[in-house]
């Protein structure tokens, strides 16, 4: 898969202020390239959910520029954003959001209803997606007949059935025991290996530690980004051992952002802003 010349996700000095003056995002700049697997980690209230909503185009920033797969979010109307979500972005939620009393196959197939595909094709893709997440033998089970881990796999199947290039997962293991959680993380890694860009939001530093790139947030700012660590004035020691793992994994693609040159100052600004 050849990655296009523009990043999958690009946030430029993005702020999101809620009525009442609470700044959930405060001047965040971030770039995620095609094929990356990124953890956004931070305590609750750090703005990571808002970040996911902004990246997922469910929320518009108060200021700053957001580009998803090359599209400027501010240039698009609400229905154009909906179309972008239908084709480009898959969501996985902590609480699965599966329809009760609906078999796994239909839960997944109904996720494609807004793509304009015919019903038979939706069901065919849903079956394939369930096969892909290892639930080929569970297609006719209803959510209450599945374990938590299996439910999350159904939700992931729904998110990837339309082959979106970007998958956003909000605490995907938050409602699962550690064994199921590890299974789900393994699945997300496999999906990433086959080319999907994945952003995982988590407050679990252990999970984040296993991922190639980690963006730490606090109070609406990015306080560290393992991709730009060498440019930062500080680096949290805990994350140090995993940096090499990420470098090995994505070594081939790493040259590009630095080659772009003009990106570097803004990254530096964001990092120093976060450190201040």
């Amino acid at each position, binding site marked *: 898969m050849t990655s296009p*010349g523009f990043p999958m996700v690009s946030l430029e000095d993005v702020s999101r202020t809620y009525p009442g003056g609470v700044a959930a995002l405060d001047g965040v700049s971030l770039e995620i390239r095609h094929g990356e697997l990124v953890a956004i980690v931070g305590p609750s209230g750090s703005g990571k959910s808002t970040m996911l*909503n902004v990246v997922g185009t469910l929320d518009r920033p108060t200021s700053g520029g957001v580009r998803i797969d090359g599209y400027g979010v501010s240039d698009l109307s609400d229905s154009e954003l909906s179309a972008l979500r239908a084709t480009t972005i898959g969501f996985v939620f902590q609480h699965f959001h599966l329809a009760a009393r609906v078999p796994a196959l239909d839960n997944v197939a109904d996720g494609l209803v807004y793509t*304009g595909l015919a019903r038979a094709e939706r069901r065919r893709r849903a079956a394939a997606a369930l096969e892909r997440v290892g639930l080929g033998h569970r297609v006719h089970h209803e959510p209450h007949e599945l374990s938590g881990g299996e439910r999350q796999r159904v939700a992931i199947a729904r998110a990837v059935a339309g082959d979106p290039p970007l998958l956003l997962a909000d605490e995907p293991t938050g409602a699962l025991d550690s064994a199921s959680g590890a299974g789900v993380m393994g699945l997300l890694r496999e999906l990433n290996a086959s080319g999907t860009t994945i952003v995982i939001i988590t407050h679990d530093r252990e999970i984040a530690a296993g991922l190639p790139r980690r963006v730490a947030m606090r109070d609406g700012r990015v306080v560290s980004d393992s991709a730009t660590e060498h440019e930062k004035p500080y680096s949290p020691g805990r994350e140090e051992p995993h940096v090499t793992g990420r470098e090995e994994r994505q070594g081939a693609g790493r040259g590009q952002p630095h080659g772009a040159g003009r990106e570097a100052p803004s990254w530096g600004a964001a990092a120093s802003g976060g450190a201040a």
Partner: protein
Amino acid sequence: MAAPARSRPPHPRPRPVPARMRAGDVLRVGAVGLRTRPLRAFLSALGIAIGIAAMIGVVGISSSSGAEVDRTLSALGTNLLTVSSGTTLMGEAARMPVEAEAMIERIGPVRAASAIGKIGDAKVYRSEEIPEAQTGGISTYAARLDLLSTVGATVHRGTWLNAATERYPAVVLGASAAQRLGVGAVGPDTQVVVGGIRFSVVGVLAPVPLAQELDAAALVGWPVAESRLAFDGHPTTLYTRSDESRLESVRAVLASTANPEAPNEADVSRPSDALAAKQATSQAFAGLLLGVGAVALLVGGVGVANTMVISVLERRAEIGLRRSLGATRGQIRLQFLAESLLLSAVGGAGGIVLGAGVSTGFAAYRGWPAVVPLWATGGGLAATLVIGALAGLYPAVRASRMSPTEALATP
């Protein structure tokens, strides 16, 4: 696409276009709420169904009864005119001349004429033992032999008077007169007392819709009335059948022909008009009931609106999920509008079946032809769709305006 790294994509890039939902998908998505909460859907559809059933039932029953009246009238004919002797200016009972019947028979378009004459003093009793005051409201009339064919009456039991029996103490009773006297079988042994003389009951009439005065009458022959009951020979009511096309011109001259000396005293009427008027009255009453049905329908619509509002509030997470899956605001709106329309349509269809069933059953019970007008069925269906659209509009708009992030935040 292996271009050098840039933060802006190559131009121009096609803007994303939301896919149109297929009609089948709109219905399927709209039915989600009905499928997942069947009891609630059933109850709110029931509200609509009751309203529609009430309206269809009222319209169906009154149409069936109208059809019955039309059937009766077409069987009996609407060309019957009656002339009653009426009252004088002084308020006393007027008298038509003895020749009145013969005179109106000479009017060109009159096909047939017949007469009865009230015998005021002749009371009817089952036997001599009955106290004089208990007359039972039965009047005695002298009747011409051609009365039955002219008014369209039929004999329920026994026979009508004939040239022989009209000269002797023989009586034919109207339907309710026979009931009041307790006369079942007819024959020479069945006798009643008319004006103090025993008369044999030779026949009992079926109810006469166009001459209901005959139902509570005891009819005796003209000659026997004159010879035995002191009848003065003056007719009190004349019945005429005329050519339908010239009915109005006959009507215009009827009073002056029947009673040339005092045309103002004679009352001319058309009994079929009275039946039609009765029908009109019952239709006015049906209009009132229709209003009650409409109120029931309105209440049903409020029930649907209530269900939809609750449904939208409860399904915030689903709305958020659908938005994240790529549903536009319009598609969310469409989903809830479709759900509301489906709910009403299901209720409306049930109501039409129920209403049609009730009116058919009632018509069958009364022996009427069952009629459920197509306009009522179509109107009922249209009303439910309008109600469904109105009831769903506000909740649907509310659902579509919901911010997806807030909707998702409430699991």
